[in-house]
């Protein structure tokens, strides 16, 4: 391999053979041949149905066989040699397949870095990243990610899914409203497994000196979206239907989820502070397909246990919380933690202030940033409990109205975030 490059010679040779393309879809995997097979088939069908004339390539970044599916992976390679042929419809051109092999599972950041490099070298016009963790992604869904970009209207396409009303609460109550308030662009699924982007956004991101950062290696997608927003690129959302996770890769606990998403979002705030501190806009994001779709089947969530974890966390983490939160905020948190379960409610204004305190403290690094993000877990549980109680009988529309009110509250309090962000803070050792 040549020095000072992460691109293997073999990958470069494959890219040379592909040449310029119109569309590129990247998938990242570590083994799991069955999931890869499903993803490749969905992509090929999307090309066959929706992009018959275009020059297309699938870039598969693979981290080796760590799940004993080697035989299945070999079968996939053989299968991939032949195009999927649909009756009456078929790509006029070759559907190219490129594989980048890593000896160990590549982090999402390294996988995306490889895909962006391929997109840039192949001068792809529209790209998408697809996850092997989403087991039911349809050819139409993939086309929905690519088409807005290919038609030249947008540079970034975030997905939207049909969700159960209790699914995706972290996005609904924290990531979406906070990112919307801070960055002025309401992307609902900032942290997602699949998204679309333009070649020019790929080039912009590829040339940023961030790829060594742990936050990017772990979760690069929000940074990419925020890069698009802060560079005044055009963003939209596209409806992909039901979100169904395959068994592998799902089920992360809430602390880990917070580290990967909220910690990442705080890091993005840090990265882009020069932009959002002066940004007062809040613009709706064009949406292709339904804006939201909720289902409300019965759920077996243990609300009592969630509440108890909130209350005990507030007590156990008091010293840490006191270093993170504004005293007034901390006092209110302790106050509501002393309420009986039946009367407990986490007000939205308090929730917003709490998060802004956390974000500012992250910025000022008042304590170890990883510990700081973990300390949010009990408070998030309290908010979740409050939400579940308040919306046990709510209709999807009622929930949506509530969600909008929360967004407005985040926007209303944005000056508070600015104030705390810019304040001189004495860092406690």
């Amino acid at each position, binding site marked *: 391999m040549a020095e000072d490059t992460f691109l293997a010679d073999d990958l470069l*040779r*494959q890219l*040379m*053979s*592909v*040449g*310029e393309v119109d569309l590129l879809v990247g998938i990242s995997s570590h083994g799991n041949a069955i999931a890869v097979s499903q993803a490749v088939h969905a992509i090929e069908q999307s090309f066959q149905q929706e992009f*018959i*004339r275009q*020059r297309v390539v699938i870039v598969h970044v693979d981290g080796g066989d760590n799940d004993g599916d080697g035989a299945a992976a070999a079968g996939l390679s053989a299968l991939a040699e032949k195009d999927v042929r649909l009756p*009456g*419809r*078929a*790509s*006029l*051109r*070759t559907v*190219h397949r490129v594989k980048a092999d890593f000896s160990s599972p590549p982090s999402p950041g390294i996988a995306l870095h490889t895909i962006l490099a391929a997109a840039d070298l192949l001068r792809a016009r529209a790209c998408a990243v697809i996850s092997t963790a989403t087991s039911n992604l349809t050819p139409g869904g993939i086309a929905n990610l690519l088409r807005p970009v290919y038609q030249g209207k947008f540079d970034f396409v975030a997905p939207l899914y049909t969700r159960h009303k209790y699914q995706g609460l972290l996005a609904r109550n924290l990531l979406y409203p906070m990112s919307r308030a801070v960055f002025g662009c309401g992307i609902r699924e900032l942290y997602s497994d699949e998204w679309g982007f333009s070649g020019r956004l790929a080039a912009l991101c590829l040339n940023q000196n961030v790829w060594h950062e742990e936050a990017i290696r772990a979760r690069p997608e929000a940074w990419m979206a925020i890069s698009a927003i802060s560079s005044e690129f055009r963003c939209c959302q596209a409806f992909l239907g039901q979100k169904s996770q395959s068994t592998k890769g799902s089920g992360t606990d809430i602390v880990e989820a917070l580290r990967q998403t909220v910690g990442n979002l705080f890091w993005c705030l840090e990265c882009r502070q020069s932009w959002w501190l002066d940004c007062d806009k809040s613009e709706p994001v064009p949406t292709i397909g339904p804006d939201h779709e909720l289902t409300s089947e019965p759920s077996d969530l243990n609300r009592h246990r969630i509440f108890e974890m909130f209350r005990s966390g507030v007590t156990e983490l008091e010293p840490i919380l006191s270093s993170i939160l504004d005293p007034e905020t901390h006092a209110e948190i302790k106050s509501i933690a002393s309420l009986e379960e039946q009367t407990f409610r986490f007000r939205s204004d308090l929730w917003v202030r709490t998060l802004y305190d956390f974000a500012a403290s992250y910025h000022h690094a008042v304590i170890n940033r990883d510990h700081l993000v973990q300390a949010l877990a009990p408070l998030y549980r309290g908010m979740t409990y409050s939400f579940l109680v308040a919306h046990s009988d709510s209709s999807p529309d009622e929930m949506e109205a509530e969600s909008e009110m929360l967004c407005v509250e985040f926007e209303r309090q944005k000056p508070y975030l600015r104030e705390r962000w810019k304040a001189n803070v004495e860092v406690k050792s």
Partner: protein
Amino acid sequence: MALQKDNLWYKDAVIYQLHVRTFCDSNADGIGDFAGLTQRLDYLRELGITAIWLLPFYPSPLRDDGYDISDYTAVHPSYGSLEDFKTFLTAAHTRGIRIIIDMVLNHTSDQHPWFQEARSSRENPKRHWYVWSDTDTGYQGVRIIFLDTETSNWAWDNISKSYYWHRFFSHQPDLNFDNPGVLEALWEVMEFWLNLGVDGLRLDAVPYLVEREGTSCENLPETHAIIHDLRKRLDLLYPGRMLLAEANQSPADVRAYFGNGDEFHAAFHFPLMPRMFMAVKLEDRKPIMEVLEQTPEIPDTCQWCIFLRNHDELTLEMVTDIERSYMYDEYAMDKTMRINRGIRRRLAPMMGNDRRQIELLNGLLMSMPGTPIVYYGDEIGMGDNIYLGDRNGVRTPMQWNGGTNAGFSMADPERLYSPVISNAVYGYQAINVDSQRRSEHSLLRWMKSLIQVRNASQVFSRGSIHFLNPSNHRALAYMRQFGEETVLVVNNLSSSAQAVELDVQRYRGYIPIEMFGRNLFPRFGERPYLLTLGPYQFYWFRLRRI
């Protein structure tokens, strides 16, 4: 140069297709004729072609460019006499050029005496030489070929008050091959021309000879039986003569017309042609590879005939709806360029007059398996006139020089059977034989050298083909092999420079010698062989082991 005795001559031929009317007018009546064509035979010999396929030159009302024949055993008076034809035939043979004539078995003109008799009364002995019905409901579902002009395969005859069957224009009634008299009469016609010395018969519209209820009325076993019968008679009485099938069908269906080497000697490969154009526009070898993968093996004595353009529209019958739509968008955006299910344009205008693309396509034509057919005028890059109606835009006078009527005729321009092309790009002042003869780097000179290289070996005409499948899909690479001779062909289908790695492990140690300049290239080694090609460039390498 006399004709070489070789019964498989059609396998090694380079065929030049022309219409007598379009080539050269000797008597200043504005219409090309056999005397004029005879005068131009030396030009064709210099070009290097070895056979001429003549479009129909029989007496005809000319409502379908001569495919509506009213007398099978004479020459249309506009083109000269039978004696003129014989003189032409002898002159061609003297120059080593074989002659293939067009023969329409499926139908006649409605002006043919046979049809005139048949329609005169229901009791006439010729009545059942055609297909009649009291209703127009028979053979329901059979496709209509000329969709732009015909609404039914049945036409009403007001004289005999009944319907007659026609697969093409309504003025071309189909002959009834269920009547043994028809086959015998047509065999007599064929014998007439074979006795004069013609070398091959191109049989038009072969799949449609026989009709059967409940079928597509195409490619029926009874049709094959008729062809088999004709071939048997030909082999017995006229060995060394050739039958060429016009069957615009899928390769699998056309394969049946070769039989076990006992039906046609050769047949057009219709589906390959549009896919060559498609591959160049898509910059991807996939369309060519797919159609060749679907092409079955044929008996050793048989041959495909391949072509880029001809006197008809560039037919898109044998492509999918999606492919047709793509071809229209890329090559016929102006709807005037479209007719039936095809594109009525010549090669050079279709390629935007891009010399590199024209050369690449001719390179493919000359190096792919099959006997190549060059359409008159394409060797100099003639243009077309899409405003002439029907397919007349690709049938304009041959452009010999920049003088009066392009050197085609001394008649007043108003008298010409068709106006000459006179626009600034393709007009005869710019594009003509004389000027290209004088220019060392003209398309004509280049075509001569291409044909010369092809004719120097039988590897292209008789050799096997093996595709190399380099990972770069913009490159189409194949080995042609015949006996001890091996040739590597590498084509860059794209508009940009390409690097191609070829797996030539099997030929390790061979030295590639570029066939046009005869230059040596680096020897094949252990590693994949790296070649770089400019836009639309192609290489032919003869492989030698020394």
